[in-house]
């Protein structure tokens, strides 16, 4: 019952949003270069469906590879930070510096350093998506109940066991929060990468249609991009539902009938 009305509610908000948009464009005679109407965008999407689908693939590849690279490396670094004070103290300043560097400013240089095609896109996506993984995972790993670890110590368990049986499950909610943030950042990264360093992909379509002031096509590509992104985000949500047992999901807790 509740689920159904929520879905309806979400749908309604969507419809109202687009209706207002359409009306505003119509009533205020806003030119398509400034803001195209939703119907015009929809039309453009339908017209260019083959193109948009085709261009989605390289973008998808860049996002997923960049994301995976960020997750793997970020996770490993977080483990280092959580378990070794030296690693933490020696990497933190550089980590932060690296995160603060406006990577977008480097994008043209990336082109020169990493060549064309997939590589620079993946690098940018990974670089942008990396930081939240490190911060959140390290936080999760260090917030473990100390007595639980002591209990494992009393069993003479190995560090590896403590890690897999206690710390990792404990940190999972933190990690999933990070994954959700990072996937969206990987998307931004891949798009930026495609702005500067690619002749294909949705980012390229967005950029080139922006330059040629083909605003409808730009919006069409942005919409496709968003749909792609939402699908990837949902994949993570599903993974979370699957991996986090009942005891750890947000909406669990004491429940009376």
């Amino acid at each position, binding site marked *: 019952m509740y689920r159904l009305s929520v879905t309806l509610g979400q749908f309604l908000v969507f419809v109202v949003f687009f209706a207002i948009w359409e009306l505003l464009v119509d009533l205020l005679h806003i*030119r398509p270069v400034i803001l195209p109407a939703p119907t015009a965008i929809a039309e453009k999407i339908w017209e260019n469906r083959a193109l948009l689908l085709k261009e989605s693939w390289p973008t998808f590849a860049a996002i997923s590879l960049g994301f995976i690279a960020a997750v793997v490396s970020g996770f490993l670094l977080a483990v280092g930070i959580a378990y070794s004070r030296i690693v933490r103290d020696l990497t933190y300043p550089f980590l932060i510096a690296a995160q603060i560097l406006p990577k977008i400013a480097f994008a043209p240089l990336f082109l020169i350093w990493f060549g064309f095609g997939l590589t620079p896109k993946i690098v940018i996506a990974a670089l942008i998506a990396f930081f939240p993984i490190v911060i959140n995972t390290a936080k999760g790993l260090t917030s473990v109940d100390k007595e639980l670890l002591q209990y494992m110590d009393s069993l003479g368990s190995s560090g590896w066991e403590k890690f897999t049986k206690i710390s990792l499950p404990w940190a999972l909610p933190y990690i999933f929060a990070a994954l959700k943030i990072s996937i969206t950042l990987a998307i931004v990264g891949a798009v930026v990468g495609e702005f500067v360093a690619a002749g294909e992909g949705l980012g390229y379509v967005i950029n*080139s249609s922006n*330059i*040629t002031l*083909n605003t409808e096509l730009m919006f069409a590509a942005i919409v496709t991009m968003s749909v792609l992104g939402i699908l990837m985000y949902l994949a993570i949500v599903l993974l979370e539902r699957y991996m986090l047992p009942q005891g750890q999901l947000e909406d669990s807790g004491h429940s009376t009938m």
Partner: protein
Amino acid sequence: DTVSIRLDWAYGSEHAPIFLAIKKGFFADEGIEVKLMPGEGSSVTAKLVGNRDADFGYATADQILIAAQRGLPLLTTAVILQQNATALIFPKDKPIKDLKKDLAGKTVGVQLKSTTKLQWDKVKGDQKLDATTFKEVPADLAIVPLLSAGRIDAGIGYFFNDGLKARAAGMDVDWILFEDLGVKIYSTALFTNSEFAQKNPDLVRRFTRAFVKGWIYAKAHEPEALAAFIEANPETDKVYAKMKLPEVLRLTESEDVSKTTMGHSTPEGWNSLQETLLQMGVLPQKIDVGTIYTNDYLK
């Protein structure tokens, strides 16, 4: 041979002759397979060719000169657009006739991401405009929407890009060419890495020949060029593309070219460009322009 070439920006009908050359097999005739890539501004293209990440580039001459002065080994083999396309664009209902008077109280959009802003600075100096009487705002890639939204009263951009796009979007705009304000400089040119040229003089010659041939042929067969471009870029705005191509082709003309051949350039032309850049303040010192261009590969 496979030769890569990076253009200045995303594909537009200003690149139609290149698509035509590929389609007609001019490059194939020279035994060359072309790897065509869009660009992200002339400055990036210049850097990439200087770094040998692309064999050829198609970018504005000012950027080539700046990059060469900064130590990148660049060699221009054909100056395609002989005239400066930069213009002050404004809606007809808020006309600007006399720069000195009509700009007062207006907001001018400038593009920081291109040297057009610097050219505008030179114009302001040359024409002794009082910059305090009007307002300049950044407007990269958004001259037309901003004009359309009334956020700016005039914008600096390429007339064949921003100007024509505005018209294609149904706005009634006019423009003053910088060429007519005394900024006579070369525009877009074909260039390569000079080390690459030294090692492969024949390849460079063949490539340049096919490239220029495309432009000559396009000038004579404009509809065919347009068709080739649209075929390769089906999602393009066809009205705008059709409007733009003849204007671009017209920019290939000059007194010099009419006497010699398409793509030809002169020491005077390059020196005048260098002079302008010096005045604009983007070039710290002079270099010998003879090292950065040659007409040798035009046959």
